[in-house]
């Protein structure tokens, strides 16, 4: 079953001469329970696709369908319960003066979820934090712990789709491994669908089964992770990206 279907998506910023096209004629489908990866350099438009999906960019054209719902200018309440996003920088995406408890309960109130108390304990447990973290402020948490809170917040309205915008790029490799394992566990246990954006081919290759390579707002290639591991890319840009990535790992 298709969870996300995007056809001929264009996203642009500015008007007239100042118009710049961030995403050009992009189409893809993501099946339910699939992990789909988007890679590319900074400015290639990969985050913009996620932002357009959740409605953070007003200027787009094309067709986007998420879980059977065709997206228009406004998203329904059910959409936000179903689709959640995790942002890049856990230092910037949590309110500095709200406790973990307040961050999580606010989301649940917005979505009309009852028994908030039990749910928070459950959520903190799911992301491997435990009840002792419940009344802490973000500055009392490490980067990895903050990202776990951000993931817990995204999971609060029981979504089926998570959009991950470079969820580990601000973290140390050792903490990155913990978060990637957590994401893999959650996906398996709750049958979630992910779209994951990253510039790190190693990270994308670890989680994703199918990967789209972007350059200048366009998909240059969509390939399976096995083909990527064998370094079988047909497009020269993908080859270049793979070579530099393999070189840096040495």
């Amino acid at each position, binding site marked *: 079953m298709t969870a996300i279907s995007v056809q001929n998506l264009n996203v642009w910023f500015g008007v007239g001469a100042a118009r710049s096209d961030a995403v050009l004629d992009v189409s893809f489908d993501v099946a339910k329970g699939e992990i789909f990866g988007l890679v590319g350099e900074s400015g290639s438009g990969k985050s913009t696709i996620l932002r357009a999906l959740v409605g953070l960019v007003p200027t787009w054209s094309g067709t986007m369908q998420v879980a059977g719902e065709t997206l228009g200018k406004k998203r329904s309440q059910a959409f936000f319960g179903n689709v959640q996003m995790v942002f890049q920088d856990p230092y910037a995406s949590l309110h500095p003066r709200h406790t973990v408890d307040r961050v999580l309960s606010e989301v649940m109130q917005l979505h009309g979820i009852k028994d908030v108390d039990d749910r928070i304990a459950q959520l903190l447990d799911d992301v491997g934090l435990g009840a002792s973290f419940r009344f802490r402020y973000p500055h009392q948490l490490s980067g990895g712990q903050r990202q776990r809170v951000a993931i817990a917040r995204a999971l609060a309205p029981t979504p089926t789709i998570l959009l991950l915008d470079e969820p580990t790029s601000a973290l140390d*490799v050792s903490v990155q*491994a913990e978060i990637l*394992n957590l994401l893999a566990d959650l996906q398996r246990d709750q049958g979630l669908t992910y779209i994951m954006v990253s510039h790190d081919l190693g*990270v994308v290759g670890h989680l994703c089964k199918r990967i789209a390579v972007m350059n200048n707002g366009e998909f240059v290639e969509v390939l399976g992770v096995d083909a990527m591991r064998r370094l079988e890319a047909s497009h020269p840009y993908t080859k270049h990206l793979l070579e530099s990535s393999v070189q*840096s790992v*040495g």
Partner: protein
Amino acid sequence: MSQPLIDVENLWVRFGGRSGVFDAVRGVSFTLGQERLGIVGESGSGKSITGRALLRLIQPPGIVEADQMALQGEDILHASEARMRQLRGGRISMIMQDPKFSLNPVMSVGQQMTEALRAHESVSKSQARIQTIKMLDEVAIRDPERVFDLYPHEVSGGMGQRIMIAMMLLPNPEILIADEPTSALDVSVQIQVLDIMDKLVRDRGMGLIFISHDLNLVAKFCDRIVIMYAGRIVETCKASELRQAKHPYTLGLLNSVPNLEYPRDRLDVLKRDPAWRDAPSVSARQ
């Protein structure tokens, strides 16, 4: 063996605060010859602070103590501030992480580069311009005359970092400290910037201290590696012998990196042993 470029023995950096004294660097010893030394560790392991302490950039309430901190035999721990200003940039240079925050946004590239050169050498403006443009050309910037008049916001991240490298190398320092020089850049640009830095450092016979959290990158790029944990050196080895590393922390760092070519179902997670924190620092003096 000839005298090392930098000789540090038992370096401590402390920060006092309301909640007591925090030891950021705890008894680190190392030497740097004409080689490329990598310092690796997680955030908060004290690697950047070590780099900054070498340039005496630790401000109060930070306290720097050491049995010895010498630049080619000259004591830099007790040198005057005026002398340090000559040394900084002149003989030891530092490349910072993010060109967006380290270049002056209201000066053109050329202005700030010639300023850096003229602070250390008495050259005329026109001569400085010629040298600057030649240096920009050496870091593989196309059309250096045009870039000379651009402002930092008009250049890309990779170009900005190359401009930083060019600026730091202009006064011909003997030692370069690069603090995560490529972590703000895309992979494809990373390699290019590193290759340029590598070539210049080799050609000039400089000493390089390369600070990074990326163990694989450091292993590929350096001769010798120092691994830091909680302000101490837990292990030191030749880059070529990294695969034979023994310390569980080093192994943990190596195994936690997802690798495209060798996939695993689960990544290894580092189990931190409190004993690592208490173990004495390994000396990386040679």
